[in-house]
């Protein structure tokens, strides 16, 4: 009896507690993505681009997180190397049936669907949606050129509330979504908050998810896009209103997405409007193979003649092969018709995309 008792004592003392055998969620979450792409035009001219970024999420407990996303890229057209910090923020999240998040710092864009696919492994094609990087002909005399909606990581704050079938958010940012501001860029568009007094851009957005895989969202952004004194010809600060509708539908091996954007800019000639949209789709045809495509269109006006319209159109068709979970090869054909052009420009592109979740 005594021997059995001692045995039990020994077992109890040496047994590892179950809790000690459980994995602890890592304090850091780190992932990286990279892409190398080469684009060739009909004349055999080719340009190459390189992109590398890392996302680091540090958990501080009590629902607080710090997120930083540095990136380095080599611009395909100029060959210039560019380094940036695209996210550097603190975040508080409270989970639940109605969940809440508030974040501040250099935050992910609170507006736009295309901005959410701004990493190579999330983009089904090689080129990004045209709205992010295609400059619109100037709408202000001697004023800067803008994008329909730039890929922005503004300094600001955002609050998000979401539940199973809906999400809503409000944000205040110092950057106009029409003019991407970069932490390390020179020159840079001005901040639209601070002195002289000018309201920052305010974003209000919401979405509904009627059923799993289908979401429709909308956002309105209002705030400064042009600041007095940016150039000698610009004597008055101007505001812009940006409205966007976005939708995503996914089922089985198919995913579809689309976005419509309308910009109304105050200029010295009155209000000038520009709008555009894109639709994209991706279809897995086998575990390793997928096809994807996108059609973009941007329509704008001339600064001095509002009735005159100019169009930009582009389309891309991509064939993808997933070598491993981390490496994807893409081959694509792209056609684009720039503003003021009447002919399509054909290019072919090849890219290698790598993504790794480290921890």
């Amino acid at each position, binding site marked *: 009896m005594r021997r059995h008792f001692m045995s039990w004592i020994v077992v109890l003392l040496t047994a590892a507690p179950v809790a000690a*055998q459980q994995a*602890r969620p890592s304090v850091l979450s780190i992932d990286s993505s990279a892409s190398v792409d080469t684009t060739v035009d009909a004349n055999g001219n080719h340009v190459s681009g390189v992109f590398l970024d890392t996302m680091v*999420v540090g958990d501080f407990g009590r629902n607080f997180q710090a997120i930083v996303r540095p990136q380095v890229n080599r611009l395909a057209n100029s060959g210039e190397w560019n380094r940036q910090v695209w996210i550097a923020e603190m975040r508080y*999240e409270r*989970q639940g049936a109605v969940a809440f998040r508030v974040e501040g710092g250099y935050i992910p864009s609170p507006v736009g669907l295309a901005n959410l696919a701004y990493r190579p492994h999330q983009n089904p094609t090689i080129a990004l949606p045209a709205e992010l990087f295609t400059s619109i002909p100037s709408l202000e005399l001697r004023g800067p050129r803008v994008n329909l909606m730039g890929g922005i990581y503004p300094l600001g704050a955002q609050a998000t509330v979401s539940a199973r079938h809906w999400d809503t958010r409000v944000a205040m940012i110092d950057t106009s979504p029409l003019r991407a501001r970069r932490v390390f860029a020179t020159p840079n568009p001005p901040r639209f908050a601070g002195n002289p007094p000018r309201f920052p851009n305010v974003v209000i957005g919401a979405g509904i998810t009627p059923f*799993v895989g289908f979401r429709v969202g909308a956002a309105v952004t209002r705030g400064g896009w042009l600041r007095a004194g940016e150039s000698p010809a610009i004597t008055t600060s101007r505001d812009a209103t940006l409205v966007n509708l976005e939708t995503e539908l996914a089922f089985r091996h198919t995913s579809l997405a689309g976005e419509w954007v309308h910009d109304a800019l105050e200029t010295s000639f009155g209000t000038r409007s520009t709008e555009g949209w894109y639709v994209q789709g991706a279809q897995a045809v086998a*575990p*390793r193979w997928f096809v994807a495509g996108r059609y973009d269109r941007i329509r704008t006006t001339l600064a001095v003649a509002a009735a005159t319209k100019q169009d930009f159109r582009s389309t891309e068709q991509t064939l993808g092969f997933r070598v491993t979970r981390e490496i994807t090869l893409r081959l694509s054909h792209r056609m684009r018709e720039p503003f003021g052009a009447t002919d399509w420009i054909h290019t072919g592109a090849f890219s290698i995309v790598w993504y790794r979740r480290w921890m």
Partner: protein
Amino acid sequence: MKVRARNIVLLAVAVAGLAMTLETEPSAQGNGSVRGRVSIGIPVTAKRATSTYSRSVQTVALAPESEIRHVVVYVKDAPRTAAPPMRAEIRQRNENFVPHVVAVTAGSTVDFPNDDPIYHNVFSLSRTKTFDLGRFPQGKSRGEVFDKPGVVKVFCQIHSHMSATVMVFDHPWFAIPAQEGTFELANVPPGMHQITAFHERLGDTTQQLQVEPGRAATVDFVLPVPAQP
């Protein structure tokens, strides 16, 4: 007279039963078993969910399972032996594959029901098994047959922190330890064997063990290094 006849019948039935037992399970009579306990000697971390680019706030995280249940103990040098196919299940719950690890015989089916109110995608590009079940919503389930032995890493294309492992064997001598770490491999052929404890991040830990007929051999593992005698 009746009693004698009844006894003869009972005796005949008993002899026949014994003969049938000897005929259908000859190997089990000469086999041994392997018992032991697995424990993990170092802290293990799990990938956490992130939702940096999501318009929605992430859902509640599931408490991680015991890492002991992510270990598969098996006879590494076992001869290829026919074993009946099984039916296993890996649920997608709170952005986790639950359980994280399953072990099955070749030809078995693993079902992947989705318990979450969001889409998941189940796919693998492993050499042993390449498949893509696509997206499917809450309440739906899709299954996949694993017909070749090996390790199959399963992922969700939508959530990068989600992963699972399916270990497929061409013999029946494998086990996932109980919550407290104990395991038993029954009917192991006698002889010197390599017993391996597999954990996807701690790697393979292998020990030599002599299995004797009709006896239980004991081997303990403290991952990632073998237990010292």
